[in-house]
């Protein structure tokens, strides 16, 4: 960045976030019109899914030994360069041009609005751009929803493992509870099913009740969390890890033995629910609710850890005895945090079940829990923006590196080891994004005083 001429840097720094978002929206619009033609024209054979990373890697020849890998490297490189051309033309140029052009009007526009409305407009723009970006290739939409589910999982686990400093490793168990409760409810209420028979309610209800059922799934998971929290917080330290692992296994085995919901064969029919909802109004319901689910999770957990009660959570991490002395009701605080965390895991489970359309107990094993743990430590303990970033990066990497097959896992865990060696605190290291860029500068909050010319922060 240091080499960039000062003026450009200043200019880019002054562009509000909303202008960038509008730029991205414009880029996705351009892509949905021109993407395919451009992709074919420069020899990509279509629209690259994730900026060309997956497609270039799939040109690696892995099963012919080192020679095969080396021989295929040029074609990987050529494809990568072509994809880069595509990315610049379709994404980078439009984003910066549109953002640059809209910088001034947007800044003026934002300054006239109340803050809550500004936030709302940001979210709507982000949602619309994700929708157009994902709508072009359905595969992207799926990955965006996986990322959403993982953000909820990671942030909620971060509350326990990051903010509270306890070690919970059975998060997938609570996810399973939420997934099963909400899918059984939706399938029972809204679709024709072998087990539950004809739909109980009319199709119109599905649209209204879907979010409520997700919440019911969350509550079921929270109750489960509460049941776990009561005995396990009588102890300290490693015991929680053991208890949560056991709970993960208990929940999985319990579901396996309930014939009514499919046992080990799994449970399905959730796609029928989505079709019912789409028959009422044809919008991407699942994307909408995943998006809202993520927002609610982030807001609730952020507000919780910033509240008086939530400060107690951090105090417990730092020193439990001192916290107790400072009048923090540690037992109560721990149980509350754990219940909130399980609640959101349940919500994530409900969304996940409807994204996949099929769940089986084998999906919610200790491996799924480990994945959430990895994302928490990758993003940094006690950082919400870290959790969001790492869930995004990890999920995208898992998808983008899919062509590498076995080597994918080697690479990802290797990266994790390197991260632990050189940056043990994770990507964000307990800080939030807002510690680096102020909300005022992003245009999310009005500056305290109206400043003409809006000077960028000193270097």
């Amino acid at each position, binding site marked *: 960045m240091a080499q960039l001429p000062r003026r450009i840097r200043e200019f880019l720094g002054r562009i509000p976030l909303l202008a960038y978002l509008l730029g991205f929206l414009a880029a996705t619009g351009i892509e949905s019109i021109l993407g395919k033609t451009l992709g074919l024209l420069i020899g990509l054979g279509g629209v690259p899914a994730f900026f060309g990373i997956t497609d270039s890697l799939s040109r690696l020849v892995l099963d012919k030994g080192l020679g095969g890998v080396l021989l295929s490297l040029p074609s990987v490189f050529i494809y990568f360069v072509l994809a880069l051309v595509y990315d610049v033309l379709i994404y980078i140029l439009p984003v910066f041009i549109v953002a640059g052009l809209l910088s001034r009007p947007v800044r003026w526009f934002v300054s006239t609005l109340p803050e809550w409305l500004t936030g709302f407009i940001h979210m709507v723009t982000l949602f619309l751009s994700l929708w157009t970006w994902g709508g072009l290739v*359905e595969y992207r939409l799926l*990955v965006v929803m996986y990322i959403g589910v993982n953000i909820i999982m990671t942030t909620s686990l971060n509350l326990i493992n990051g903010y509270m400093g306890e070690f919970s490793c059975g998060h997938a168990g609570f996810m399973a509870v939420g997934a099963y409760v909400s899918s059984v409810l939706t399938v029972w209420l809204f679709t024709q099913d072998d087990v539950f028979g004809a739909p109980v309610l009319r199709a119109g209800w599905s649209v209204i009740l879907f979010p409520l059922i997700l919440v019911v799934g969350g509550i079921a998971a929270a109750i489960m969390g509460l049941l776990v929290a009561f005995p396990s917080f009588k102890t300290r330290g490693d015991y929680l890890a053991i208890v949560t692992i056991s709970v993960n296994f208990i929940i999985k085995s319990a579901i396996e033995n309930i014939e009514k919901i499919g046992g080990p064969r799994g449970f399905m029919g959730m796609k029928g629910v989505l079709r019912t909802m789409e028959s009422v109004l044809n919008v991407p319901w699942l994307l909408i609710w995943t998006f809202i689910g993520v927002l609610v999770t982030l807001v609730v957990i952020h507000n919780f850890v910033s509240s008086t009660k939530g400060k107690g959570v951090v105090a417990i991490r730092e020193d439990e005895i001192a916290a107790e002395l400072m009048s923090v009701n540690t037992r109560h605080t721990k149980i509350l945090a754990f219940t909130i965390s399980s609640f959101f895991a349940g919500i994530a489970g409900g969304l996940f079940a409807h994204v996949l359309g099929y769940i089986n107990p084998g999906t919610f094993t200790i491996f799924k829990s480990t994945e959430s743990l990895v994302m928490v430590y990758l993003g940094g303990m006690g950082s919400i923006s870290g959790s969001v970033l790492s869930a995004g990066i990890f999920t995208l990497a898992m998808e983008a590196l899919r062509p590498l097959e076995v080597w994918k896992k080697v690479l990802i865990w290797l990266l994790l080891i390197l991260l632990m060696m050189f940056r043990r605190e994770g990507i964000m290291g307990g800080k939030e994004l807002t510690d680096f860029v102020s909300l005022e500068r992003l245009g999310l909050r009005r500056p305290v005083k109206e400043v003409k010319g809006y000077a960028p922060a000193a270097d």
Partner: protein
Amino acid sequence: MFKKALPLIVVLSAAALVLTACPTAKGPSEILIGINAEMTGDIPKVGEGTKYAAEIAVEEINSAGGLEVGGKKYPVKIIIEDNESTAEGATAAATKLITQDNVLIMIGAQASKQAIPAGQVANDNECPMISPWSTNPRTTLDRPWVFRGCFLDPFQGPVDAKFAMDELGAKKAAVLYDVASDYPKGLAEEFKKAFEAMGGQVVAFETFTTKDKDFSAQLTKIKAAEPDVLFTPQYYDEVPLIVKQARELGITCPILGSDSWGSAELMKLCGDACKGSFFSTHYAAAGAKGKTKEFIDKYNAKYGYVPDDVGALTYDTMYIAFKAIQDCGKLTGDLKTDRKCVCDALAKIKNFEGITGRMTFTEEGDPIKCAVIVKINDAGEFEFYKSACPEGME
């Protein structure tokens, strides 16, 4: 800024106009087939067999100049996507193959845990899919776009029961299965139902959970019940443990298994203990003739081991896909039309002569075909013992 950006915008919009005016490619230049396989995870050997068999089939077609459809030869290209042996991996892989890579038809996923969600994606996106190996009825149930290349559990269970009763002369059977895995569980239940319906008695119906390594408690119970046959429909990695422990405990009755036994790995892990056991499967490698032998030899020469049933079924499935594409008569290049055409052609396939036997698709997209009972002979080979066909065939 606006002044500076202006020329750039003009250039870009001009380029945009030129680009949209350009004609897009007409008709497909090649046929894309997606393979959704378990390359990593619990059962990588299944993924490997799928990949190798598919590659052999494609090589055969391409060395003959490609697949001839409506008088024109198209080269066939496969795109292999790893589903990590998980449900969400299979969903992602299927979505990628269908919506991003724009394959004409998808082969896989293999195991039911992956094939059920993958079939959902295929059916929702109206892309034909054939799972060579998934035996769970739900994979194809109410899904007009999804087919399979093998028989189902409700067929295999009774075949095994009948074999135990008629050929092994068993009156009392014991069953040991994994309660946490849908395939063994379904098969065990089907076996029990059929065996009891034929007048037999299931004297022990014992369960364990995936990844258990010690079966002595269950086997001791089974031994006390003195069965005439032990039926254990487990996977190739569990069978050796079960069989060895059973023999060590002094269970001498014949042991009967299902098609999940038929992996190239089984005899490596099991050694002498498995010799003399029987299992029902899709084809027998030892003593194979004709096309089946050709495939086995080709596979063995190229990859150094005799292909298991996954390989053989995948090979058959590839040829079913080729035949459906050929029957379609014409490829328009419009993916929606072509996929519909291939799907319709698949549903019409009758008496397809594959290396795992002759098959005809039912309305549900399941083939009517024979099962084979294989005996593991003293050389450790899977030897043809008897074939069992559904009523109305042969």
